[in-house]
């Protein structure tokens, strides 16, 4: 009964979304205030209906109602409650329902929080938002109904793939979707601006918080996925250039470009049509990312089983949404006249350069991800593109990006000369040289690639330090005056500092863990000790253990350094019964300067066990850096928020075209 109720709510949500997508749009065109006024209530009703629908599906999972096909296929009575709930979105149908839930919530918050926007503009943005929703509702209801019933009702479910039963993965999809869907707001605002043919700094002021929130969520989502792969898959790797990973990286790159170009739009009233294009591209890539993952079109370790009916729908929807918005852009973009020119050597000049390099990065990832698919469908040849391709393209381009990211903030708006920043550039160069030299002396740099990584790290840190010192006019008026200036610096400065430092921390983690890692792969007996980097790993014990829904071999690995015990790791091989499968659980311990990582394999039949032990210096920095980046995004939002609240009279929000 509850299940049918959920289905009905979803059908009603489609009906409401159809109303929201058309009538307010027509109302804004025909100047009919009553139709325009429909936008806000229908956005709220839509969100409520999807919320009810999602709650119904969750209830079915919590109660283990196996008469629902999705529950039968993905759940089990013995599963812990948290994974019963995360099972809701750990499958195709449920994850799409989560997608539309977040989408409708985003629409509702636009309706609630943007009361200050002109009614026509808000109506158009909400209509665009609803159009995306319609596409997803139709897809859900006609090809992927999460409420499909199963007769006769089975007594027990099939269970959830055990490697998906993990806290990291339970929260990875919601984070990623929040990022994807957050970009839909920038998209809808871009569509509304194109329809009106007007855009200005205040448009950027409204869009930036959404972009920042989406970008922060996407950053965390990608980091969570990478962290999960690192500890759960037991390979010790954290990024595989898998199409599914690239599908989330591409919108991230576009969103990074968007949030930088929106700064130029806000501060200098320039890059109007470019920013609008980026908003469209960023969300188009999110749509594509969702569907690449959900359709399983790419041969990929993550790919899900293919269904041709869904594939055709997906393709048509993508063509309609992306093609439609780009056509609108081509038709209306010329209306968005730019008002200000700028010099090449200036803050905005470097922000433009940053955008161009990000686009170059994006296009190489796009090519590497989609070329195999295109080749397969046109010639039937199957190829894969892996790490070597990205080492040849992504690495040099990101080095260029980081080079620009350190210099850009040192320049002032409008026009600048390098000579005026000479002192600060010297600081950057000194920090880069000093830092790299220090690393070389203390630990050694084994390869050119590692050298490049460390140089980029210190270059970016140097840029942040030099900029910060300059803004504080350090030493001017003594420490008390400097401290006062610290407190008075706008939050946007701290946001930028955190964002750029986060990148530096991640680059450092990637470089250091690659350069200095030690790995031992062998078979060993209980009681034997193996040397891994500066540590001794001793396989002390092996015990069989039994937990609720799995049994395991639990290994005790004592790690010591110079004879002093450091930590005891417990890698396991687990055997799950529903569905029957084995997993290896790595034993991991994070120290301040790196991770101890142990994996236990299978017995060789002669009393020895396969083991793989790693010492991974500074690997945690990779995800810590992402967190710092996301924190920068949140600080930037709080800055926006405090300012937006100050702007009460927003009649001028969209400045007239010239």
């Amino acid at each position, binding site marked *: 009964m509850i299940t049918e109720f959920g289905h009905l709510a979803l059908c009603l949500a489609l009906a409401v979304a159809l109303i929201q997508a058309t009538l307010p749009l027509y109302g804004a065109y025909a100047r009919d205030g009553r139709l325009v006024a429909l936008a806000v209530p229908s956005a709220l009703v839509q969100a409520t209906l999807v919320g009810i629908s999602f709650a119904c599906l969750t209830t079915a999972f919590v109660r283990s109602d196996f008469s629902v096909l999705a529950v039968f296929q993905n759940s089990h009575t013995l599963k812990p409650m948290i994974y019963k709930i995360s099972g809701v979105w750990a499958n195709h149908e449920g994850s799409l329902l989560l997608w539309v839930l977040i989408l409708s919530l985003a629409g509702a918050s636009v309706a609630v929080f943007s009361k200050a926007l002109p009614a026509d503009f808000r109506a158009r943005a909400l209509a665009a938002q609803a159009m995306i929703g319609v596409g997803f509702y139709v897809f859900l209801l006609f090809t992927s109904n999460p409420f499909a019933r199963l007769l006769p009702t089975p007594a027990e479910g099939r269970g959830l793939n055990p490697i998906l039963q993990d806290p990291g993965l339970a929260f990875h999809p919601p984070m990623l979707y929040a990022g994807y869907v957050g970009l839909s707001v920038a998209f809808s605002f871009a569509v509304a601006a194109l329809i009106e043919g007007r855009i200005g700094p205040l448009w950027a002021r409204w869009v930036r918080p959404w972009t920042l929130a989406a970008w922060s969520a996407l950053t965390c989502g990608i980091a969570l996925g990478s962290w999960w792969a690192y500890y759960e898959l037991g390979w010790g790797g954290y990024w595989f250039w898998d199409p599914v990973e690239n599908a989330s990286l591409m919108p991230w790159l576009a969103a990074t470009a968007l949030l930088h170009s929106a700064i130029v739009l806000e501060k200098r009233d*320039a890059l109007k049509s470019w920013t609008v294009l980026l908003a469209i591209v960023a969300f188009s890539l999110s749509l594509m990312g969702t569907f690449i993952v959900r359709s399983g079109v790419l041969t990929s370790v*993550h790919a*899900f089983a293919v269904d041709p009916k869904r594939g055709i729908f997906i393709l048509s929807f993508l063509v309609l949404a992306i093609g439609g918005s780009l056509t609108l852009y081509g038709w209306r973009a010329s209306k968005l006249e730019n008002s200000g020119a700028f010099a090449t050597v200036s803050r905005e000049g470097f922000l433009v350069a940053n955008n161009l390099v990000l686009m*170059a*990065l994006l*296009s*190489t990832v796009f090519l590497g991800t989609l070329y195999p698919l295109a080749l397969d469908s046109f010639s039937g040849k*199957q*190829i894969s593109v892996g790490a070597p391709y990205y080492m040849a*393209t992504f690495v040099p381009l990101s080095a260029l990006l980081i080079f620009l990211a350190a210099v850009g903030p040192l320049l002032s708006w409008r026009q600048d000369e390098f000579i005026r920043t000479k002192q600060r550039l010297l600081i950057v160069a000194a920090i880069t040289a000093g830092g790299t030299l220090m690393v070389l002396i203390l630990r050694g740099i084994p390869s050119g690639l590692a050298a490049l990584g460390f140089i980029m790290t210190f270059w970016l840190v140097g840029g942040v330090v030099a900029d910060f010192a300059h803004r504080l006019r350090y030493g001017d008026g003594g420490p008390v005056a400097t401290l006062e200036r610290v407190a008075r610096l706008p939050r946007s400065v701290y946001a930028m500092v955190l964002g750029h430092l986060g990148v530096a921390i991640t680059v450092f983690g990637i470089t250091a863990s690659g350069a200095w890692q030690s790995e031992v792969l062998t078979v060993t007996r209980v009681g034997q000790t193996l040397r891994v980097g500066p540590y001794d790993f001793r396989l002390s014990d092996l015990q069989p253990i039994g937990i609720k829904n799995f049994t395991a071999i639990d290994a005790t690995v004592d790690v010591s350094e110079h004879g002093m015990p450091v930590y005891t790791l417990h890698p396991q091989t687990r055997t799950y019964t529903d569905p029957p499968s084995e997993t290896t659980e790595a034993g991991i311990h994070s120290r301040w300067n790196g991770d101890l990582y142990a994996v236990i394999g299978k017995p060789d039949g002669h009393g020895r066990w396969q083991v793989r032990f790693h010492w991974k210096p500074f690997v945690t920095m990779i995800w810590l850096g992402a967190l710092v980046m996301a924190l920068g995004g949140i600080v930037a939002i709080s800055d926006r928020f405090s300012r937006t609240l100050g702007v009460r009279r927003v009649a001028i929000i969209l400045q007239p075209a010239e």
Partner: protein
Amino acid sequence: MKPKRQRMMLMGVAALVLVASTALGLSALGSKKQYFMTPTDLATRHTLSGENFRLGGLVTVGSVKHLADGVTLTFQVTDLQNTLPVKFRGITPDLFREGTGVIAEGHMDRAGMFVANTVLAKHDENYMPPEVAASLKKSGRWKPYGQVTR
């Protein structure tokens, strides 16, 4: 510089960047891409020695053997028409089992054995390389929920 002129220039530079990055990507693709092959492809096509590619198929039941060092194993990969011996040093992934789909990345050695650097088993145990699925369907051994009749 006039804003309009600057906009034209910006468009020009953007187009140039796009062309340049695509060219960079294509040239990298030329040398770094890996072909996906099945044992039948390898039986009919000539491969360069030392060329890296991906091999996909099913692990033949009863073919997995461990060598004396304990961490190297050999097994057969089949697409049910042809079979190829594979050697791999490392701990196999969780989903690696006899009779299930596998993708190995590596190269052919002189003895005609495929030396795998990495072995991937599918996350979704119902999934297998499309060509293998096609040949399973053809030979009537396909079942919708992925269990291959032995």
